[in-house]
């Protein structure tokens, strides 16, 4: 049962359908450009999202990811380009008529309202009657595990609880799209991981198309259906998390996601010779000649005793729980990082003579600088 409100938003009056589920829609950002003075925050950005998909925009500060999200929300006006949601061009539709739920980086609960009143706010604007409003607010607070804190004010809740209420408030209006603007960045590490997993659970349960902006790559890889790595106002690569990690298409993506060793090698098309090992190359590598091969630390093995082109000296070791990291220095002074199991790391110490062996996993090769 739906009704068009005075605000022009199509609202569910709350009597028949499940109050926490929604229908995912398609989202398309086409050729978005947005400049602030001489800074091009968005430079022809393209993005297409499928119904119910969670896309994470990841990138360094100033890459344009938050601007893209704000343009989608209607909080920023694009200089050029189109925003299309569910086939409808909403480029010039004002924020309050876009029907999007948003969770902000800063705590954004209305301080003079309780958690329940915050969640009811958007429903009240849609003219939903008191009983349905109360029921739906209760269900959404239940969804984020805060039904017992419904009568608390923002100052009586922790940061994590406030962000959960903000999520419930955004979901309560059953928006077409959920927008998350670094919602976890103000939280401590443990709460961040808990809430991150919870956001993913809720997103899958509700089935809402979601755009999530973060600069935390672990967070991005953990929750996304697809990760879009942004650079200078454009998406450099967008793919599933494992593909972004294992098959980066550019040096920027390879170096931005996780750690990477840059090792000199010689390409012969599909394969390169790196420190005496033959490493298969990802498509797009230079056909022949000297190249820089980007090798992940987990693709590097260490054997005892210095021998051949991979001969090196251990510089330092670090224990990280289930695994550890070892930094070694090759004879040409190149530093190489290897990720090994905890017992392997324990067997090594600074000054040990070792040999670096690169495993034959696909790697990206670029021309030598």
């Amino acid at each position, binding site marked *: 049962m739906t009704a068009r409100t005075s*605000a022009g938003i199509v609202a569910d009056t709350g009597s028949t359908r499940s109050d926490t589920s929604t229908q995912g829609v398609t989202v398309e950002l086409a050729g978005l450009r947005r400049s602030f003075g001489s800074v091009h925050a968005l430079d022809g950005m393209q993005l297409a999202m499928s119904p119910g998909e969670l896309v994470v925009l990841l990138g360094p500060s100033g890459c344009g990811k938050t601007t893209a999200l704000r343009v989608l929300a209607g909080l920023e006006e694009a200089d050029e380009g189109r925003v299309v949601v569910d086939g409808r061009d909403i480029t010039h539709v*004002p924020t309050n*008529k876009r029907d999007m739920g948003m969770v902000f980086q800063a705590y954004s609960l*209305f301080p003079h309202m309780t958690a329940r009143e915050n969640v009811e706010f958007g429903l009240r*604007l849609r003219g939903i009657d008191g009983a349905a409003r109360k029921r739906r607010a209760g269900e959404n607070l239940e969804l984020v595990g805060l039904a017992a804190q419904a009568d608390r004010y923002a100052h009586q809740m922790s940061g994590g609880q406030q962000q959960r209420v903000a999520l419930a408030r*955004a979901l309560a209006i059953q928006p077409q799209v959920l927008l998350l603007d670094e919602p976890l960045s103000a939280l401590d590490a443990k709460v961040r991981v808990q809430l991150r997993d919870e956001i993913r659970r809720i997103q899958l349960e509700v089935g809402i198309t979601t755009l999530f902006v973060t600069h935390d790559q672990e967070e991005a890889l953990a929750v996304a259906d697809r990760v879009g790595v942004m650079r200078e106002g454009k998406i450099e690569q967008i793919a599933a998390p494992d593909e972004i990690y294992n098959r980066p298409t550019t040096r920027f993506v390879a170096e931005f996601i996780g750690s990477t060793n840059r090792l000199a090698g010689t390409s012969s098309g599909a394969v390169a010779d790196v420190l005496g090992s033959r490493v298969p190359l990802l498509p797009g590598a230079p056909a022949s000649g000297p190249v820089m091969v980007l090798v992940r630390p987990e693709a590097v093995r260490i054997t005892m005793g210095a021998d051949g082109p991979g001969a090196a000296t251990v510089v330092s070791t670090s224990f990280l729980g289930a695994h550890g990291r070892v930094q070694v220095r090759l004879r040409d002074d190149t530093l190489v990082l290897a990720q090994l199991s905890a017992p392997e790391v324990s067997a090594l110490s600074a000054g040990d003579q070792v040999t670096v062996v690169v495993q034959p996993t696909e790697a990206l090769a670029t021309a030598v600088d």
Partner: protein
Amino acid sequence: MTATLAGLTETPPEKRRSQLATRRRSQRAFRWVVVAVVLLFFAIPILSLLDSSSRLRGGGREWSAWDPILQVATSSDPSSRLIRDGLVNSLLLVAATLVLMLLLLIPTMIWIRLRAPYLRRIMEFVCLLPLTIPAIVLVVGLGPVYRRVADLLGTGAVWLCFIYAILVLPFAYRALDAGLDGIEVRTLSEAARSLGAGWGTVMFRIVLPNIRSAVISASFISLALVLGEYTVASLLARRNLQTAIFLVGQNNVKTASAMALVALALGFVLLLLLSLVSSRTSRKATS
């Protein structure tokens, strides 16, 4: 004295307790002295006004100077009429100035925070300017404007609200600015907008409830300033409470003293009422 392990000396606990009690007593006494001095500072002029409104030259008391005030609503005595006009005008001016000041400042300050933060310093400068301009200069500058106002709206004293709104700007701006600093205006309004709120809803249901105490503070200051304003009204030949007191004082100093006392009391009562209203609405908001 007892020796410690480090070879240092330590005060016994009983002595330390008695030293603490002595210090607390002297601090309490000092607090009362400060309170007494402040009370005297305010009470002496008030009591002097009361005294001068009733003292007879040869000794003794006589309260006839209070008659024009006590019968202000009904008496046709010239002093009563002056006071009545001045009082009504001042109360109207308080209301008009408050409305004008709040309508002018709050939306502008919020808009600047949301849309044009680079204008904040300019806004602050403009709002603080009246502090540096003497009232006489303001009146000279605004004289021609007020001639036009008189042509368009008449010569009623209530139109002094335009110049009073300028006079209260520095104080009201400071109070509202502090209130807006205390909340995340941009985030809250963006959150409300994303939930479907229009600008009116953002203003009245999100921002205003969160800066209520700042609005009340700005109103307090404006009220006190308008009730006590004399120079501008006198120079523009308009009648308000203070010019009425002056005029009454030309013929009857005792009634003028009594009226000054009543003006103080009126200001106090209005401030108290505002404070009660604000605490009641804030209780309602949090209950």
